[in-house]
């Protein structure tokens, strides 16, 4: 492991410890949700990284199509693999929150639908990769599917939740563009978002740079 990687992991470790402390000891109970609000400091960051991983996968798909390179394909594929893990975590944490607040694990709320479709896309992308034996064709086809399925994200994330009635709490930045949140909660949320993003970046680089990342499928 290189020195900057060690530094990054050390930063992640410290930040994670600080976030865990803040979530359990500093964040006040929220109105209407009580202590259940603490789940949000895990759920929102993993959901954010799930979408970010998809964006990164699509970005490297564009770069691959413009200039085919095994490294770009590795970034796209590894980002999708990590994205699948994060989207599963977001789905599970959301389902637990749903059970504790609304009484059922799953009721096809628009936000649940969105995250579920993202899960389907990741699963379809990885299935497609697994059934094409030729490495060059696999990379090209996977890049095209990543971009084609990427079209659904703006519709599912921004349009469908606004069309259908949702029980899901309003996004952090609400409809009027302002942030309506306790300052301690907001700082903790921002720190947890940064922490989860750094974890994603560190794992992504580690996997791509390791032998598994580059030679796994060749």
């Amino acid at each position, binding site marked *: 492991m290189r020195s900057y990687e060690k530094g990054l992991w050390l930063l992640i470790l410290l930040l994670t410890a600080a976030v865990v402390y803040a979530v359990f000891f500093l964040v006040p109970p929220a109105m209407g949700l009580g202590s259940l609000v603490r789940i949000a400091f895990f759920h929102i960051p993993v959901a954010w990284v799930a979408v970010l991983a998809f964006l990164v996968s699509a970005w490297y798909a564009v770069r691959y199509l413009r200039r085919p390179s095994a490294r770009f394909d590795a970034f796209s594929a590894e980002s999708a693999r990590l994205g699948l893990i994060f989207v599963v975590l977001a789905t599970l944490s959301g389902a637990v929150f749903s059970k504790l607040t609304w009484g059922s694990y799953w009721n096809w709320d628009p936000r649940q639908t969105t995250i579920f479709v993202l899960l389907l*896309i990741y699963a379809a992308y990885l*299935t497609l990769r697994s059934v094409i034996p030729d490495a060059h064709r696999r990379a090209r086809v996977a890049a*095209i*599917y990543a971009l*084609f*399925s990427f079209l*659904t994200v703006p519709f*599912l994330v921004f349009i*469908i939740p606004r069309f259908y009635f949702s029980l899901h709490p309003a996004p952090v930045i609400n409809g009027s563009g302002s942030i309506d949140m306790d300052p301690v909660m907001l700082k903790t949320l921002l720190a947890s978002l940064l922490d989860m993003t750094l974890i994603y970046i560190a794992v992504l680089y580690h996997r791509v740079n390791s032998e598994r990342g580059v030679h796994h499928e060749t």
Partner: protein
Amino acid sequence: MHASLYRAIESVFRKEARISLRSRSSWLVVLMFALTTLSCVSLLMQGDILAPRLAASMLWIILFFSLLAGAGRGFADEEQAGTLMALQVYGSSQAVLFGKGLFMAVLLFVLSLLIVPMYLVLMDIAVASWPAFLLTLLGGTYGMAMAGTLLSALMFGAKVQSGLLSILMLPVLLPILLPAIVLTASCFAGEAVHGSYLVGIALYDAIMTLAASLLFDFLWYED
């Protein structure tokens, strides 16, 4: 559109139509699949009346899976017949994509016009607003045709093809299927139809067409 490109699209469209009419396999499979599923559903319901939302969902599930059998054949048939190379040599990518995609759109819409009346009769459902219902069918089948054409081209060289198309298609088509179900339910229930859903379907169809057009070149012209 450039005149020569238009002529090339028309040629591919005619070729597809001629082969489809000659072999009949592509649309016969779709019809038989739909007929089998419809009769199963009707038989199991034993004359019970479904709520509009449930009836609409059931209709679109049947349409999705039966039309999928046709939508995915675009390039698989060429590969089996050994004519893909000739098409790659003589046809430009855009002519092939739009010729095949538009033919598939017409075929799927016509097939849905045969499947839907059977469903309405067997399930004893009346449609309150036919124009909105037909526009929904048109938007839905067009989206399936364009996505099916691109995705069937993606699947060359895949070890497993059966079942893969539905896995790839469902996430891509959900932004069409969800509003289509809401619109169809409104048409079945006799409620006011929200035009914004139709606009949403049309917009998504347009974006999907543009994306398919941009991405298909990367598939057609391999290194």
